[in-house]
């Protein structure tokens, strides 16, 4: 089965280790989202996989094809790896029209002209930009540019695709449209994809699986709901959604207690609530109100739908769900 396999990958810049002994499998037809803060090594990982950077150590293969093997001294050049790569900055060539940008890889493969035109028309239809064929990139919007960049990667029939924060420069409304388009393309073209982002909303929108990275290492990998509901560390809990991370003994007087992750929506205000605190602060967030409740030594964040409580008021609450980390 064709899948991307990364073993023991190490990438260094001078004396700094950016990726540290990383193991990763990306299954056929899977859209893996790598989520992590800036500088965590997620873009470097993509550069290593695509051959733009030479890893220090490790093994990378896709199906039968070995891209990199430090032991056997194999390092396939980038142009032979056939990886579709979409950059944050679009990387459209400004001196070429949309058409010339898209057909560039087809011309390199010396595909005949009539076939090139057919492929071009199909892909432009798929990305809904048939009318922009002869336009230069500087006359396109950010969203249009990124669709062209995706189309250009797709026409070369890549083994798999790497998308490096492709929608960072796109406004939120258009971003949702493009995320749907990327997901649709991934399903229709049946291409495994690695999508790198620091935006958890993008990750939840399209990911089959999410991988959380920090300081060059994988912190957690799993289905989106697993990552959200069962974070394995304070880092993941803080990075994904809002959470209260408190010591167990805040609620129960235990010794050697563990830390708990409690999502704000899992704390319920109830007249018969087990715990008593008072409202320290209120923030209107549009669809809900965020309340900061002082309880013992901790401040807990609670999301409620109504705005009937006031600052200083004593309230009772229950904790419906918590996760030990």
């Amino acid at each position: 089965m064709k899948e991307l396999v990364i073993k023991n990958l190490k990438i260094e810049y001078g004396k700094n280790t950016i990726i540290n002994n990383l193991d990763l499998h990306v299954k056929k037809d899977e859209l893996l989202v790598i989520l992590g803060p800036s500088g965590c090594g997620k873009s470097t990982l993509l550069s290593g996989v695509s051959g733009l950077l030479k890893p220090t150590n490790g093994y990378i293969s896709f199906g039968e094809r070995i891209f990199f093997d430090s032991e056997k001294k194999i390092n396939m050049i980038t142009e032979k790896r056939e990886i579709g790569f979409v950059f944050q900055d679009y990387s459209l060539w400004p001196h070429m029209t949309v058409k010339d940008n898209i057909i560039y890889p087809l011309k390199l493969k010396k595909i005949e002209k009539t076939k090139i035109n057919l492929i071009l028309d199909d892909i432009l239809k798929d990305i809904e930009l048939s009318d922009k064929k002869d336009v230069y990139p500087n006359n396109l919007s950010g969203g249009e540019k990124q669709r062209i960049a995706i189309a250009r990667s797709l026409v070369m029939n890549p083994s798999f695709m790497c998308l490096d924060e492709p929608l960072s420069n796109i406004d939120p409304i258009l971003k949702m449209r493009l995320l749907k388009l990327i997901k649709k393309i991934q399903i229709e073209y049946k291409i495994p994809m690695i999508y790198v982002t620091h935006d958890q909303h993008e990750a939840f929108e399209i990911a089959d699986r999410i991988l959380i990275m920090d300081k060059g290492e994988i912190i957690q990998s799993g289905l989106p709901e697993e990552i959200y509901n069962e974070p394995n560390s304070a880092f993941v809990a803080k990075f994904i959604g809002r959470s209260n991370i408190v010591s167990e003994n805040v609620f129960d007087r235990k010794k050697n207690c563990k830390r708990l992750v409690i999502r704000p929506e899992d704390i319920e205000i109830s007249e018969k609530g087990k715990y008593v605190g008072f409202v320290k602060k209120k923030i209107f967030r549009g669809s809900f109100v965020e309340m900061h409740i002082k309880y013992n030594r901790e401040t807990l964040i609670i999301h409620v739908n109504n705005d009937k409580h006031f600052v200083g008021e004593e309230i009772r609450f229950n904790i419906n769900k918590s996760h030990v980390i």
Partner: protein
Amino acid sequence: MKNNLKNNTVKFLNKNSRKLSYSNSSLIFLFTALVVLIIIVFPLVYIIKISVIKDGRIFFDGYIEVFKDVKTYRALKNTVILVLGVLAMSVPIGTILAFIRNKTDYKYNKAIDYFVFINFCIPSYVLSVAWIECISRGGFLHRILKMILPTIKYDISPYSLTAAIIVLSIHLYPLVYFAVGSGLKQISDILEKTSFLLGGSKRKTILGITIPLVYPTLISIGFLVFTRTIANFGVVSNLVLPIGTEVLTTRIFQAISELNLTVVAVLSILLMVISLAVFKISKRVKYKEIENTNNTIYYYALGKYRIGVNIMLSIFFSIALFIPLVTLLISSFLKRWGLPIEMEYLTLNNYKYILFESEVTKRAFANSIFFGIFSATSAVIITLFILYFKKHNNRLKDKLLFSISNLPLSMPNIVLAIGATFAWINPPFKLYGTKWIIIITYIALFIPIVLKHASGLSSNISLSIDDSAKTLGVPLIKRIFVLYMPQIFSGLLSGWIICFLISLREIPISLLLYRKGTETIGVMLFMIQSNSYGLETTSTLAVIVIIFSVIGNVLVKKIVKGNSVNERISD
């Protein structure tokens, strides 16, 4: 306390409000506009007038005579050959060097920068002198060949259109190098990496992505090389005129010596129209701007080509830089050009003669320095006013003044000189034969150069600075000199140095306008060789000019903080 402050403020405003009158601004504008009209427009109008008016009547005989004359077409044809030849040589040389310097992992890339920079500092006329000293019979090439093959028959002439093409290409390729280099630095690495990811090899990426991305730069610098070549006088007069071949600039010079003023005027207009047309076309060509958003550059690994590149660069810089420099240097220490290079024939007397003994050269140095300082300073002041009005008022008349002031940029120096001759030869403004005609023409030449250096800085200044000064009651003169000038000072200063350097090497203007007593270094460079001084004295003067030029350009580089200096510094 509040009342005190109020009273003082009122006093301050009343005191300064008299100086804030509208007429003050109008007076300065009027003065600037008058100067520009007199030194730029007036000579231009005179050239046109002489080309079409004779004995008070309009006539086009001059145009008919010029366009009927076979010599005109011959000169035009030679000019076209010269321009195409220089473009075909200088553009690839500059581009390849810029590519190696900026886009490869070549180890000695800083050395390329230094060598090209020194090449850039050598005036074109001086290069042509070095060429003659190298190639002519009795030249260094002949002597070396004779040492190797004593019976060799040497019949290479240093004079030909090809020689002018080679010398001008060596002189102008640094412009291409600087421009293409900064273009290549604008290419974000992801544009090339994307090509690799899509299956493009290095060769295909270089030819399909990297080089085409600098096509806009190549086109615009091509236009600049075109205008510089067509306007050149020093090299063609030294290498082409001696064999009777003419290009447009030498044709004008010949017509002057025949005192055929109408033909001179018509040919000047022809030369100016061609230059202006090319200049305007270059401004109109719409380029798709590239912008390096992530500030990283992709460097191609030279790999097995490293040795080849080393050999190629060594050969090139030997021919373009070291041989001319060494030739000039050796000649400058020879008692007489042509003597064997042995200790007994070496002397310091040439330097002693030029710097301390010869009254003419001493006077030429003093004149060039005075003309340079006076003209460059005047140009800076006029430019300051032009830019201030353009920036802060931006009325139609301000824009017009700005455009007119830029006109000399597209006019060959020889045309400026001819315009000045026509305009200032008769009363009431009889300046011909005095130093003032050279100074005025230098100012006209320098204004657009200073404008080019300072206008970028001016456009970055916030208008609110001047507005806030107005509300505080700061008078116009203070706003210009105390608030505005310091903000564009580095541009004005680098422009000033460039102009000063030009005055130390400029040939066509001073050659046409000088009289006994107003000789310049440029005139001496040209005339020393023409008289019986011999090439060793020309070489000595050339070495001194090169040293001045290198020092000046280093200063400019320091002032503009590493920006390439590719302004109009050549004749």
